[in-house]
């Protein structure tokens, strides 16, 4: 469902080009659990941003569900972000003035979901991450792990096809990190495609497929770790 064809992304820094992605090609099938690893500056976040329609390739094509969207109109890409893609960030990015429920409602607010339905679905999403009792708490009244679970509830409340997580456990202690990973892996088992950028070998080891990046290129792509033994109709290029 996700396909990158020879995608390059180059930043201009002080007159000299920084090649964050060099002709990267990749296919990720529906329901996969992929870990993206590699040294700092190797282009993992850049890759995730392109897949999440937050950034555009300079060269190459990015296809989502078979349609080229790397160069599509902003309106189309916003619609994809709203309905098909969920994001989880290292720094949570919850709005401090809103309650947990308010934060979870946010994507529905901008997607035009009515108020009563927003309430109901936000509650259900918080329940799914085990935070229903904390619905009226603000982010500063929650622990790091709880904040990330609220962010996960927000990312999946629109029922997306893909969850993109950029170092979701980077700011958490081991116990919270495990909780968070178990949560999103459970969602993955119910069909959500999962792409996780991580520095942590233990976290990467939980994925069935691990992609190694270095210097803007995919250097290694193999199934390892404790992958789950169910068959997917995915292909690897």
């Amino acid at each position, binding site marked *: 469902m996700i396909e990158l064809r020879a995608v390059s992304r180059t930043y201009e820094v002080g007159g000299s080009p920084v090649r964050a992605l060099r002709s990267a090609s990749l296919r990720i099938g529906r329901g996969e659990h992929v870990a993206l690893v590699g040294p700092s500056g190797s282009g993992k*976040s850049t890759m995730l*941003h392109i897949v*999440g329609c*937050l*950034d555009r390739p300079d060269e190459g094509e990015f296809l989502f569900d078979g349609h080229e969207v790397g160069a599509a109109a*902003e*309106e189309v890409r*916003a*619609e*994809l*972000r*709203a*309905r098909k*893609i969920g*994001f989880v*960030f290292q*720094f949570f*990015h919850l*709005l*401090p*003035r*809103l309650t947990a429920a*308010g934060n979870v409602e*946010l*994507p529905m*607010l*901008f*997607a*035009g979901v009515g*108020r009563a339905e927003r309430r109901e679905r936000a509650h259900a999403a918080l329940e799914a991450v085990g935070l229903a009792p904390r619905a009226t708490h603000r982010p500063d009244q929650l622990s790091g792990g709880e904040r990330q679970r609220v962010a996960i509830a*927000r990312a999946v409340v*629109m029922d997306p096809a893909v969850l993109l997580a950029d170092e979701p456990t980077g700011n958490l202690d081991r116990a919270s990190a495990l909780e968070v990973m178990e949560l999103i892996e459970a969602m993955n088992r119910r069909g959500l495609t999962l792409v996780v950028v991580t520095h942590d070998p233990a976290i990467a080891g939980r994925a069935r497929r691990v992609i190694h990046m270095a210097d803007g290129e995919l250097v290694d792509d193999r199934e390892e770790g404790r992958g789950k033994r169910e068959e997917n109709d995915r292909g690897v290029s």
Partner: protein
Amino acid sequence: MSFWDVLRFAAGALVGHRLRTSLSVAGVAVGIAAVIGLTALGEGARRYVTSEFAALGSNLLIAMPGKVETTGATPFGGVVHDLTLDDLQAVMRLPRVRSAAPLAAGTESVRFGDRSRAVPVLGTTAEFAEVRHITVAAGSFLPAGDPQRGGTEMVLGVTVARELFGEASPLGQVVRVGQWRFRVVGVLAPRGRGLGFDFDDLVFVPVGTAMRMFNRTSLFRVVIEVRVHGEMAETRDDVLGLLVDRHRADDVTVISQDALISAFSSIMRALTLALAGIASVSLAVAGVGIMNVMLVSVTERRAEIGLLKAIGARDRQVLAAFLTEAALLSTVGGLVGLGTGLGAIHVFVRFYPSFPAVPPTWAVAAALGMSVLVGVVFGVWPARRATRLDPVAALVKR
């Protein structure tokens, strides 16, 4: 995303920054309060002046020596003939004129026993009571007779009567003005102000005596009552023609009070507009304040804007959210300013009850409209900056 959703979202963001929000609200409020307060004062001045003139009565013409263009300021320039009692008597014989009364004015010290009071002394004739609808509380007004001859009768305003005589009746008493002696024949009913004179604090004496006393050869004014209200213009021409004929020069001014009122009214209205203009400068300042606050807000909330985009907010939704914030700031400021302005006027009127300070409706509407406009206009640029933000750069903490 419904209008109410946008509004609630914007309001939430504003409440999240209380101090900043209240400061920019205060900026707009001061501007709007200034507009409301100043226009109310201007409008009050207009009403005050027009009601002063209206107190004259509705079918009066006023003749005064000297030539003045259109409005009734002081005469200036050229040789000016006296406006005499003979002129008055000729005017009274005009068919369209019902009645006319002269005015000779000066300020003198009026004495009774060891009490005295400096008041305007107005020389006039018996007709004045009829022309200006004056009623006496005790005794009678000046007696009819040949205006040239003069006399020693005096009519007192209520304040003068009280100051000189206390509770005792002044009727028949002798009052001195300089070496001149007068006999009190009447006391006016309380009346209040009108055209620059406090009718309670003056005295009337026969015009002939007043002119000798003040050593004047010209009358100050001739007040003319027109028979038919519909013939004001014709009568004015009659009077002017007659006086030009008698003086062999076009050196008198005859005005109807309608002309006076509308001239003053338009002057005061222009003044009010000018005041509103000055006050709106502070609104522009407030607008720049809002722009500044919104720019700071956009810069500070980069991560929030990036997140909104990441969860699928359209550019126009982000624009709408930030524009609504700016408009909300200025609208709330406008309402607070309106309240403050009206409150200030209320207090002002308490201290000066005779001054009818009321903000004109157009000023209230314009002030509110302007406050909303200020928010939208000055909010556009910051809001556009928000939509142009690159979400990737905005989300990364560096």
